[in-house]
């Protein structure tokens, strides 16, 4: 639970205790916030007192009445903006004082709460302010952690998420306007394509979830001794229905019963991505060979396919986020372009390495080397 300090500045005791009462058990939650936020209320009678408190205590939000006995609310607002601009000021005003509202906006008030207010109005104003503070904190953090990367990632992500939306929206509009006539059969293919695009989007979102998971540290509580071959087998079973459709055979070569201390979820990500790629980019009737070996305290996971292969230029970019090989053969293969960048992150997390050996037209071999 996180606390925000809210100072109420009003000379009417009724308003101060009312605000305290309303906000006492109020919490704000946000889907991607770790914990709920609640409020500490500090009650103050005059503008002078308010300024003293702002100097001495940490205040996040000020609820400020303009009509005060000594200095006015707008004077306090001015002080905040000059000295503590990070504090959000919300003015409590009566409906009549529009002029004041304009003046206060110019001086940087974040919001207004018209008087008299209902508990609900106060709560929703405060909720907005809280979310604003939270997002501002997040943005600052992201800016520090590499604006460039974030910018690039977001622009590609936005493209990848919006493209299917436009495609689906387009088909729906065509159907709505009955562009292909009254016969429902005429729209079959458009419906199929829309469902395909939704599936692609869902996969992208799943991959994104994997990616955010890996951005964090290895989780010690999830580490356990795992049998590599078992996880490989599970992966193969999951991908097999798809392989059968493509008439691709997956074989597992595992003679050593290798054990490894790892988070099974992480190792599954490696197998799932490498094996599903090996099937996806294979030729009909092709083969995938998964072999597990250990040599000198190192574990080798080797996934070899008889697929379309990669050029040097493609190999160089293969681990970039959202990179996808685009050519005549891959045109109808869907993918988020995140799979291998996720694999790379997992492998890095375990201080391992990943190598590619590939020839166009002959196939690719991916080798993951992990320390024991």
């Amino acid at each position, binding site marked *: 639970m996180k606390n925000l300090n809210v100072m109420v500045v009003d000379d009417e005791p009724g308003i101060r205790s009312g605000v305290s009462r309303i906000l006492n058990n109020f919490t704000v939650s946000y889907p991607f916030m770790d914990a709920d936020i609640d409020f500490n209320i500090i009650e103050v009678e005059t503008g002078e007192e308010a300024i003293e408190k702002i100097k001495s205590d940490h205040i996040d939000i000020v609820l400020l009445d303009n009509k005060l006995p000594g200095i006015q609310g707008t004077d306090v607002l001015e002080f905040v903006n000059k000295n503590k601009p990070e504090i959000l000021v919300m003015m409590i005003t009566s409906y009549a004082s529009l002029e004041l509202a304009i003046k206060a906006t110019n001086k940087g008030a974040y919001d207004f709460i018209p008087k008299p207010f209902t508990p609900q109005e106060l709560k929703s104003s405060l909720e907005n302010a809280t979310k604003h503070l939270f997002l501002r904190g997040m943005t600052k953090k992201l800016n520090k952690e590499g604006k460039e990367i974030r*910018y690039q990632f*977001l*622009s590609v992500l*936005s*493209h990848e998420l*919006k*493209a299917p*939306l*436009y*495609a689906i*929206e*387009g*088909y729906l*509009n*065509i159907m709505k*306007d009955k*562009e292909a006539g009254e016969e429902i059969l005429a729209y079959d293919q458009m419906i199929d*394509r829309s469902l395909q*695009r939704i599936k692609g989007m869902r996969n992208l979102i799943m991959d994104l979830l994997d990616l955010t998971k890996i951005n964090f540290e290895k989780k010690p509580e999830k580490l356990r001794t795992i049998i590599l071959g078992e996880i490989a087998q599970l992966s193969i079973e999951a991908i097999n229905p798809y392989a059968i459709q493509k008439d691709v055979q997956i074989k597992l070569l595992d003679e050593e019963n290798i054990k490894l201390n790892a988070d099974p979820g992480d190792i599954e990500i490696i197998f799932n991505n490498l094996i599903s790629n090996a099937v996806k980019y294979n030729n009909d009737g092709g083969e995938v060979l998964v072999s597990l070996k250990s040599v000198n305290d190192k574990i080798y996971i080797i996934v070899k396919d008889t697929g379309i292969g990669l050029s040097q230029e493609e190999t160089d970019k293969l681990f970039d986020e959202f990179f996808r090989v*685009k050519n005549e053969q891959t*045109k109808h293969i869907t993918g988020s372009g995140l799979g291998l960048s996720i694999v790379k992150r997992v492998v890095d997390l375990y201080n391992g390495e990943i190598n590619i050996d590939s020839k166009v037209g002959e196939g690719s071999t991916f080798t993951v080397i992990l320390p024991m």
Partner: protein
Amino acid sequence: MTDNKKLIIIADDDLDYLFQMELYIKSFGFDVVKAESQKEAEILIENTKPDLAIFDLMMEKDDSGFILCYKMKRKHPDVPIILATAVASETGISFGVNSNSDKQWIKADLYLEKGIRKDQLNKEINKLLKI
């Protein structure tokens, strides 16, 4: 009946979007040639003179659309070009072809966010074709 329909080139690597654009633009009464990649579009530019071109920005490369605009204007300076993209302004990429500085490097006549309504698309095309 002589066929004097105007010809429009559409290049987009999103095959669904390409299909929809073709459907609409044909319904406006134009002929359409399609390209599914920057590479295909470059071949088209060399061999065809359309009345108008619509290019997607991000295809094999992030700037495929810009390259196509440049090549088209070099070959046929008088063919109007619409640059269409799903890249959103909220990511920080925002450009139009309304300011002079943008016009210097973006060789398109109109920049469109994808998801444009059919009637609006028709209007924009007619405006560029001076119909």
